[in-house]
Every structure is written in C-alpha cells, then in structure tokens.
C-alpha cells in the first residue's frame, strides 16, 4: 500500500513536471523548438554500451547486457533504441530455499532532449522518455520445506512460466565528452509499470531490462558512448 502510494506520488510529480517543463522553458529558449543556427539538423549517430548492467551480472546473480543506438538531431533531440539481454540465475537461496532463473531480450524506444543552454559543446544534460517491453519465461523452484504445523515436506517447481511486461521510464542523464568521439555518461531512470503478466505464481522477481520488482522504481545506467 505504501509502495503504491509513493509510486503514485512520484508518477504524478513526473507527469506534472513533464507538463510544466515545456511551458516554463518556452519563454526562455523554446524547449522543444529547434534552435535556428548554422549547425545542420543531422549530426550523426552514437552507439553506447551500459556498464552498470554488465557489472551487476558480474557481481550479483542478475543483470543485463545493454546497448543503444541513438540519432543526433542538431545536438538537441536524440531518438534512441535500447536493446538488451537480461539474465538472472539465483540458485537456491540459503534462507528461503528459492531458485529463480530467466534469460530474455528486451527493448526500449524513446527520445532524449538536450536541455543545456549551449547545445553544441559536446557535453549534454538531457531528459527523456522510454517505452519498454519484454516477453520472458521464468523457472521458479523451492527446495523441500516442512509445513510448520503438519510437518510434511512441501516443495514446488515451475519451468518456463510465460510472462510479459510493458513499462515506461522517465530519464534524466548527462553525457560528458572525454576525447574525440568518446563520451561517458550516466542516466537515472524512474520506471512505471504499465501492464504485466507475472504468471500464476503471484509475482516474478527479476524482469529483463526492468530489474527486480522488490527494489525501488529507480534505476540507472553508466554508458560508454561513441559518436559516429
């Protein structure tokens, strides 16, 4: 209940800011208006790779490999496609005796807007929005555990339970130009589940691309970006 109310509050806040931002900046410089200067509209592509998901995979029992292809329009608008492969392999938890396994691809579609006043410096501060989807199947099992009252051993095992999820992500991020075409950047994300099917066991734990459902709705990426 508490989690839901916080989620609702943050969702409303983001929506309000999203509605407020264009109007409040419109007077100053035209938030969504293409700047008129000598820089051409098409400024190239960028490929990026997320280090956070990869580090998660190395350091924990879930994570993802994720890359992105981004179009640069006038250093101002950045339509983007993010694709990844999410994986979780949690083997028999010491306390709960639960195992969880899934591997599945996911994608996100969206766009970023560079909100820096000087847009052509190579460094960028941006806000953006993503729509994301994954279709995945999970294996969940629990080792035999005695019923606390009746004392008979109970266990269950479910293989290949089919699930899916649609979600949105509000993005705030920063790219810093390091040298030549190389940028480093991070993005912070607030995720909102739109619709989902978690199978018949109640819930799922790790959703590829979304993360674990028992953690906060916040997420982050740290990207190595190469301008093409």
């Amino acid at each position, binding site marked *: 209940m508490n989690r839901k109310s916080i989620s609702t509050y943050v969702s409303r806040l983001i929506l309000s800011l999203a509605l407020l931002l264009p109007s409040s900046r419109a007077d100053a410089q035209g938030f969504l208006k293409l700047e008129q200067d000598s*820089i051409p509209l098409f400024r190239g592509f960028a490929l990026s790779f997320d280090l956070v998901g990869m580090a998660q995979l190395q350091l924990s029992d879930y994570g993802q490999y994720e890359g992105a292809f981004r179009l640069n329009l006038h250093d101002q608008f950045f339509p983007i496609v993010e694709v990844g492969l999410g994986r979780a392999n949690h083997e028999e938890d010491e306390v709960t005796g639960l195992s969880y396994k899934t591997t599945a691809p996911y994608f996100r579609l969206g766009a970023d807007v560079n909100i820096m006043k000087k847009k052509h410096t190579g460094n960028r501060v941006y806000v953006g929005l993503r729509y994301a989807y994954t279709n995945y199947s999970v294996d969940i099992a629990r080792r035999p555990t005695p019923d606390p009252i009746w004392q008979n051993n109970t266990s269950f095992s479910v293989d290949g339970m089919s699930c899916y999820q649609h979600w949105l992500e509000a993005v705030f991020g920063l790219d810093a130009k390091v040298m030549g075409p190389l940028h480093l950047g991070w993005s912070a994300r607030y995720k909102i589940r739109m619709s989902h099917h978690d199978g018949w066991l109640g819930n799922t734990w790790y959703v590829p691309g979304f993360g674990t459902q028992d953690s906060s709705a916040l997420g982050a990426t740290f990207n190595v970006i190469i301008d093409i």
Partner: protein
Amino acid sequence: MSMQEKTWYISGDVKVREDKGTRRVLEPEKWWKALPLLLLGILFLHASCSSIECPIQNTVFSVYSIKDGSAAADTLKDTILIWTVRHDGKDTLLLYNRGINLSTFNLPISYTNEEDTLYFYCWKDNYAELDTVWIRKTNTPHFESVDCSASYFHEITSVRTTHHAIDSLIIHYPIVDYEQKEHFYIRFKAHS
C-alpha cells in the same frame, strides 16, 4: 557591437567565434568539468541498489467468525480448544488453547494437504463435547521474491463437520491468502 554581428560554431573540439570578421578561438571544452556530476551519478547508482521489500502481512490463515441464529455477530460463551494431528499421524498439536468470549479466531491452514482435519473441543463447567471439522481446499504456491519466503494460497472447496457442539459451519469467503477476510461463519449450539 550588436549581437547580430557575432556568430559562434563548433570546429572539432574548439569553439570559434567571429566578431566583425575577426576570428577568435576559445578554449576546448573540459570534459572533467562534468566529473562532479559523473560522481554524483555513481553515488546515485549506489543509492538505488535494491532493498528487500517483503509483504508486511505475509501469513496465511483462516478466519472463523462466530454468529448467532440470525447470522449476527456473536460471542463464544464456552471455552474452546482446537487441535489437529500431524502428517505422520502420531503427534497432535494444539492450535487454539482455552479460547473464551471470542467473536473471531484464526487457525492455520496446511500448505499442501488436500483436506485438513481439525478437532474442536468445547466445554462449559464440567460438560465437554468434541466435534471434527474437515476442510477441503486447493493449494497454490505464491511467490513474491527470492528474498521472501514463499507461501501457499488456497481456495476452500468444501467444509463439513459433526454437530455435537457446532450447530453450523459455512464458507463465507473461500479464498485464503494474505487478506484477512472472514472465511467461515461458525455457530455453536446454545447450552441450557
């Protein structure tokens, strides 16, 4: 010098500004100026690490509501003990001890038995009666997270009882999960 006379653009890594035909080269952008923000981002990553959030109400039990003849809420006048027999058929386990003046009481429900057998022992003064209750149900595992103990949810399909002290026992709400609904309405016979 009016603003219209100035233009600036990017040439490689440097900013170039032209003022009335004079070309001035400004210093390259320093990527390390953004380092504090990058570090802030790393801190944010750390702060957004997962925390375990299991449901606060994570026990599954059945709720019995005591009713009178008109199905209104009532209070148990007698003393009640409830027990069951463990799976091995040898040990008995007391589930409810010396309940009196109750309007509702909760009883555990087995994880995976198709049918639970409960024994209700009701007495008043030196007079005692024993009833047996059989509860048939489905058993569905319920998963929240690998960090939270799994539970079993149930749907009560039927209930039957002997009628020494219990007058009637009916299913009011058949789904037994984390929600604490009143699953059974139970009515005891009045002693003269």
